[in-house]
């Protein structure tokens, strides 16, 4: 099971990830789970999800936008943003948009190629959960939140940039 860091702790992950290729038949095969589904699944299988005994959350790839989710955004408990490779920086902007433009207050989870050395910046952009890659040391990842004591810019946790505080 992939390791999850949430709110600065190592946690059990209660969500089951559905990759892109999955169709609604998977719901019949495994009853009673909580599924993290791709955006397309979310958009296409509303009826199937409604009749399933379990919760749903959504993940977006780095080229997908939160505005495609629509009005239900705020009722979704988790929105995960994917990193196909760690050098793809689009999900940093997507996380900020979720928090700042849409005011989303649920969990924003980093998914995919999520490494220790990205965690500090990710957390400043509004991610509060990290499904770290299988080979990452969770204890080392916890220390990443303390890489820097302060920063110049506005962030989700500290909207005032340093120049308004110094």
């Amino acid at each position, binding site marked *: 099971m992939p390791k999850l860091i949430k709110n600065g702790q190592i946690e059990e992950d209660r969500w089951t990830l559905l990759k892109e290729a999955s169709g609604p038949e998977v719901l019949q095969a495994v009853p009673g789970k909580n599924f993290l589904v791709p955006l397309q699944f979310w958009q296409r299988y509303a009826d199937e999800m409604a009749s399933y005994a379990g919760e749903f959350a959504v993940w977006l790839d780095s080229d997908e936008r939160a505005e495609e989710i629509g009005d239900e955004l705020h009722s979704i408990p988790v929105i995960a943003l994917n990193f196909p490779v760690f050098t793809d920086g689009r999900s940093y*902007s997507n996380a900020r948009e979720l928090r700042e433009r849409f005011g989303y207050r649920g969990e924003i989870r980093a998914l995919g190629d999520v490494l220790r050395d990205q965690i*500090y910046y990710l957390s400043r952009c509004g991610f509060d959960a990290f499904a770290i890659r299988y080979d990452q040391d969770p204890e080392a990842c916890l220390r990443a939140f303390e890489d820097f*004591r302060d920063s110049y810019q506005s962030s989700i946790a500290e909207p005032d940039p340093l120049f308004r505080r110094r």
Partner: protein
Amino acid sequence: MYHYDQYDQQMLTDRVAQFRDQTDRYLAGKLSEQEFLPLRLQNGLYVQRLAPMLRIAVPYGLLSSQQLRKLAFIARHFDKGYGHFTTRQNIQFNWPALEDVPDILAHLAEVEMHAIQTSGNCIRNTTTDQFAGVARDELEDSRPYCEIIRQWSTFHPEFAYLPRKFKIAVCGTRVDQAATQVHDIGVFLVAGPDQAVGFRILAGGGLGRTPVIGQEIFEFVEKRDLLTALEAILRVYNREGRRDNKYKARIKILVRESGLDDFRGKVMAEWARIRGGPQTLTDAEIERCRAYFVDPPYLSLSDEPDALGQALADNFLFASWYQHNVHAHKKPGYASVTVAFKETGVAPGDVTDVQLEVLAQLADEFSFGEVRISHRQNVVLADVEQQRLFDLWQRLSSDALASSNHGLLTDAICCPGGDFCALANAKSIPIAEAIQRKFNDPDELHGIGELSLNISGCMNACGHHHVGNIGVLGVDKKGEEFYQLSLGGSSRNDASLGKILGPAFAQEDIPEVIGKLLAVYRAHRDPGESFLETYRRIGMAPYKEQVYAKAD
């Protein structure tokens, strides 16, 4: 100049510790080559042909004498005794050992220096005019805004993994010395409605394999809106810039492919959402940064003192140096001096540990303890008393730093090229040297007059060949090095991109071809006309004919 407070210093200390840990993990095999790559690049560390190369940030080109002495120390202890001034006002070392880099960074941190974001796909060092704060034609000193941009862009969490590198330049003068229009973002200080100073902002300029002049995104933004405007441009670029092909990943391609109106529309929509938000600058912050760049304690002097006139009349060599290397200053009785690092036989921009110490000493004695690096890879002493110019020139002469070729043919811009750089197709330093050797007669050189010669060893264009009056580009043809020439480029306000002359030449033919180009210029020029002006008047044809004419 700007001085760190406890916040700036703490961030630097944290950065050194972070990079030490990353290097340790890499050396222990816990971090793969591929995963270490962006981390080391964002600390200025390349792995090159012969050894790693470490690029150290010199924010907007400004250095104190204390920092120069530290760089001399690093050159001596961690390198082979020299460094290299770059076209982005930084300095790089070609021979450090990878495992020494955390220690080098710790030394730099002692003098408020670092290598943060000098490479990698992030926002790079912000550059400006080397005469900022002393130029006569300045609307306002650009350096406080460079510093504000430096702080905003340093460790910006959202923009550390952009599609490609991102360069910002700021210009506060009427004559643009910083090649501002060929940057990813070019910021110009301008007077707006009711004469209040604000910014005009261009985006999508750049050199590289597709050279483009930036296009206007913001006609005028107020000072307080600077960072939100930049952030809006960066956010659109981060999300929409191409990531499938690194040669099409710069913002210039995004602006071109989306169309200016569409791109601008997206930026404006983004800006509308964040304008007035927490990143909006406060008057207090602008004043805090401006306070670091107030005038030094100038004496009350008058222009052209008698002693200077006498020395100019008595000494031809001094007069020649004065004509080319001394620049007007906003303060009566003062001048700015370019110390040219273009000695024949030495790679353009190369500087030894001893020269760095000499510069530090001269800065202390003649220019309030500061120097500036220019994008033409020279060093400027910005605040010299005119009555002491002769004294300074003698001191420079005794240290072989009094070349009077500033702004002339042999003051070439040149990238490290195939001798050092893993990306290069061809060598560039020997081209510069061959030209310097052929045109070594000062009379001839001064007769040719103002001319920019820019040499790049590959189409990444670190030597800015597109905007040289004469540009030289190294190309690889079936494993052999050839050189393509272009004419008519300029990085000033009248920015233009050079046009290719014709088929490429072998290395040994370049000096002779340059000679032919200059012969055409001298045959056609009107009195007082520069190389660029003559070219613009008569066009490419006469040069082409002369160079490619068949001998019969």
